[in-house]
């Protein structure tokens, strides 16, 4: 009888063991995060930390994988929906589902091997990356945008790998002071950004591919790309033109000893 990972055995004879021991956090379980959860459950990741403080609404049904009309009627937590998806695909996986803001349980992230960030705000992404960097955890960020250009629209997005010792989201120009300032100015403004399922799916799949290149590389000549850009109109995916720079850059935003670990660590000492 074939086992569940027979068709992905090219990932290495110990890939099942590696994946079942892996601890992955997915923060934000909307259009992007719900796709990632589903794929990681299929792949055989053994330990999940899933975090989202939102409950599903009717406007999420156009893209939230696993969400149903019944979930909308009972305002189900997105984290509970994601946990259900995991359980149905891989009942052996262990899942911690947090229905609170990730910042309230940030200490849970410290024992993860990889963190996926699938959150809308630039400030949230910057803070999540800081936690990942502080504990030497690779962080994979996905972002998607629909831009209005007169009567037309363009769909763009990117997947960024923020690896300790290498370029961060600031080096990649994804987090910029003017974007943070603009967001702060609009703080509290209602109305969600346009989001659709297929670019979410493309970006989520790329992000899962980046993770798989890190944990079970299947080709020794190809390294994970730090920044992949997606043009949903052409459609086209390509490594950022700055890839050479990003691979070589000595990140100046993180790197001092003070940037690592608990901001305060130690025993109370009485002499």
């Amino acid at each position, binding site marked *: 009888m074939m086992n569940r990972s027979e068709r992905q055995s090219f990932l290495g004879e110990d890939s099942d063991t590696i994946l079942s021991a892996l601890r992955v956090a997915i923060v934000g379980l909307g259009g992007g995060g719900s796709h990632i959860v589903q794929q990681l459950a299929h792949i055989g990741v053994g330990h999940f930390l899933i975090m989202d403080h939102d409950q599903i609404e009717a406007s999420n049904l156009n893209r939230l994988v696993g969400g149903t009309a019944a979930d909308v009627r009972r305002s189900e937590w997105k984290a509970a929906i994601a946990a259900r998806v995991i359980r149905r695909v891989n009942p052996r996986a262990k899942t911690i589902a947090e229905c609170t803001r990730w910042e309230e349980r940030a*200490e849970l992230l410290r024992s993860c091997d990889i963190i996926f960030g699938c959150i809308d705000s630039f400030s949230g992404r910057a803070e999540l990356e800081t936690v990942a960097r502080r*504990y030497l955890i690779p962080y994979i960020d996905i972002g998607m945008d629909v831009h209005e250009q007169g009567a037309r629209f363009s769909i763009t997005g990117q997947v960024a790998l923020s690896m300790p010792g290498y370029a961060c989201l600031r080096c990649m120009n994804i987090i910029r002071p003017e974007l943070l300032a603009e967001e702060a100015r609009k703080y509290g403004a209602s109305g969600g950004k346009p989001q659709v399922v297929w670019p979410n799916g493309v970006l989520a799949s790329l992000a899962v591919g980046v993770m798989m290149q*890190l944990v079970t*590389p299947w080709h020794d000549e190809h390294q994970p790309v730090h920044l992949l850009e997606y043009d949903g109109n052409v459609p086209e995916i390509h490594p950022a033109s700055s890839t050479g720079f990003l691979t070589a850059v000595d990140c100046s935003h993180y790197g001092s*000893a*003070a940037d690592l670990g608990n901001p305060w660590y130690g025993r109370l*000492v009485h002499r």
Partner: protein
Amino acid sequence: MKIHLRITRELLANARSDLTRPHAFAHERVGFTACKFGSVQNGDIVILAHSYYPVADEDYIRDSRYGALIGSEAFRKAFQLAYSNNVGLFHTHLHPHQGLPRPSRIDLRETAKFVPDFFNVRLALPHGALILSRDSLSGRVWTSAQMPPKPISHITIVGAPIETLGCRK
């Protein structure tokens, strides 16, 4: 309490590269790895390796009983590092073989003598000893000068690829 070490592939490669350089008379080399710390659930600790500092050529002492013997100036510089940067110190050396390195009797005896001294400069931080091999590493951690060391139960080498050594259960 379980202890987990995270170290980047680049830092590990730098340490290995330094520790395999020949010395004029010492048979092996020694360095110090500066670490920060995080607390995880259940009182577990994650050690975060930040940087590696080689012992300078002139700070070795000629003594044929040891593979490498380092003098007080090497320790003074290491203590200064721990004091100035608020880091834990991990004495680091290499066993030139493949597979999981285990401490020798001399390693056990000597580290038990000098690692507790690291607490004189950074009392509240853990300190320890790392042993690298050509393709693996292991370590022990002292959480106080009075307590015996604990083994690092699980190590993650952060890079491409990510590699996990030991058991996290």
